[in-house]
């Protein structure tokens, strides 16, 4: 047992690597922080476009969403990162990760936002339009607030997944938490750094996961 602990939960190592892991965590959070707003807003634009009456546009939106939901994000990232040089562009790992994660996350957000908008009853838009509100104002002030409130739980769920997904950036050498952990692991010949990284993810995300369970329970109970 002692040996198990000192191998996987070695306190000395944990303390020693903590500063480096801290910086890794910051980079994880930074990447999440820049991808979230961009993919969320992009998702709004896509889901709004999906409401268009024109058949080809609605189809294109559906295709975009299905495409990026089906594409494993790691493969997308690697494709972007390794293929770009052949197009004459040298991509910074952070930028490649940003693009890949935004494309992926925006499709998930768009899907959730779309179902949120559909959940708002049509009478709301009718009332707004009947007072002379234009399409944009109706969407911004009446429909969207209600739509987002209705799909809070999947939105939060997607955001948690987004933060976890930043781990793939380690593959293209962006020094976020996992990358630092792997480096430490090979440097120190110990699995403790990996365990520490897992624990840090757990500590950071656990409150949100718990909160989400409670939300999802309410959702299923409502049905």
């Amino acid at each position, binding site marked *: 047992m002692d040996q198990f602990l000192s191998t996987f939960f070695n306190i000395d190592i944990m303390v020693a690597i903590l500063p480096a892991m801290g910086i890794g965590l910051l980079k994880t959070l930074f990447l999440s922080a820049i991808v979230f707003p961009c993919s969320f807003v992009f998702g709004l634009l896509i889901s709004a476009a999906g409401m268009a009456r024109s058949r080809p546009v609605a189809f294109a939106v559906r295709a975009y969403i299905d495409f990026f*939901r089906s594409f494993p994000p790691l*493969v997308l990232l690697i494709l972007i990162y390794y293929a770009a040089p052949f197009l004459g562009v040298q991509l910074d790992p952070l930028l490649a990760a940003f693009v890949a994660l935004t494309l992926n996350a925006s499709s998930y957000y768009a899907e959730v936002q779309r179902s949120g908008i559909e959940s708002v009853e049509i009478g709301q838009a009718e009332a707004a339009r009947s007072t002379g509100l234009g399409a944009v104002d109706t969407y911004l002030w009446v429909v969207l607030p209600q739509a987002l409130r209705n799909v809070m739980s999947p939105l939060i769920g997607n955001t948690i997944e987004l933060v976890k997904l930043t781990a793939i950036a380690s593959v293209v050498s962006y020094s976020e938490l996992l990358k630092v*952990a792997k480096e430490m692991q090979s440097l120190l010949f110990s*699995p403790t750094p990996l365990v520490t990284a897992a624990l840090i993810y757990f500590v950071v*995300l656990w409150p949100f*996961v718990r909160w989400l369970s409670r939300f999802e329970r309410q959702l*299923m109970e409502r049905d």
Partner: protein
Amino acid sequence: MDDIVRYFLNVEIAYATLPDLLRGFGVTVRMAVLAVILGIFGGLVIATLRAYRIPVLDQLLVVFMDFFRAVPSLVVLVMVYFGTPYIGLLLSGETATILGLALVLSAYAAEIFWTGIKTVPLGQWEAGLSTGLRFTEVLAIIVMPRAVRMGIPVLTNRTIAVAKGTAYGAIISAEEILSVSLSAQQTYANPTPLVLGALLYLLVFIPLVQASRWIERTYSIRH
């Protein structure tokens, strides 16, 4: 334009690498199927165990479920692959991938099934027990089928997400699509294999995403 074809759609290279890629495809599918089966089965077991509310075990199961939903799949896979040698287990990349993904999926599935169990009205339990059925019988015959049925739409989404994690196997030496594409890309200094690999992934996942949407729709209306 010629450059793009030569680099990304190079027919000769595609032809040359196709056999390896198809073998990788087989590995991907195999890993996905096994991980999904084990994961869902594991989730059922955990949810069932939780129904018995055994004191210490229940707490441990909760921690298990929270842990594997808060930690990114890639981190779990890396931990399994690099950590198990330290307890005397030498797993192949493929096995580690299957095991890691199964652990993650079982945590999500357990949460989904457990929520399903909890939302079955108390009246159902009372009806069953009052006719002399034992707890286990009520659970198995009356409650679980309902719980599983309620969880199917949510579960399909989650299952696909985890299945896409087979791509992470490339990082821990599983010889699946991505890993084969990457080495081919390095051998030929040409990203066509990556493009081909991406297409193979889409071939697997686009139908799955369509199917899941169909499943969601079918299982949401009836109850």
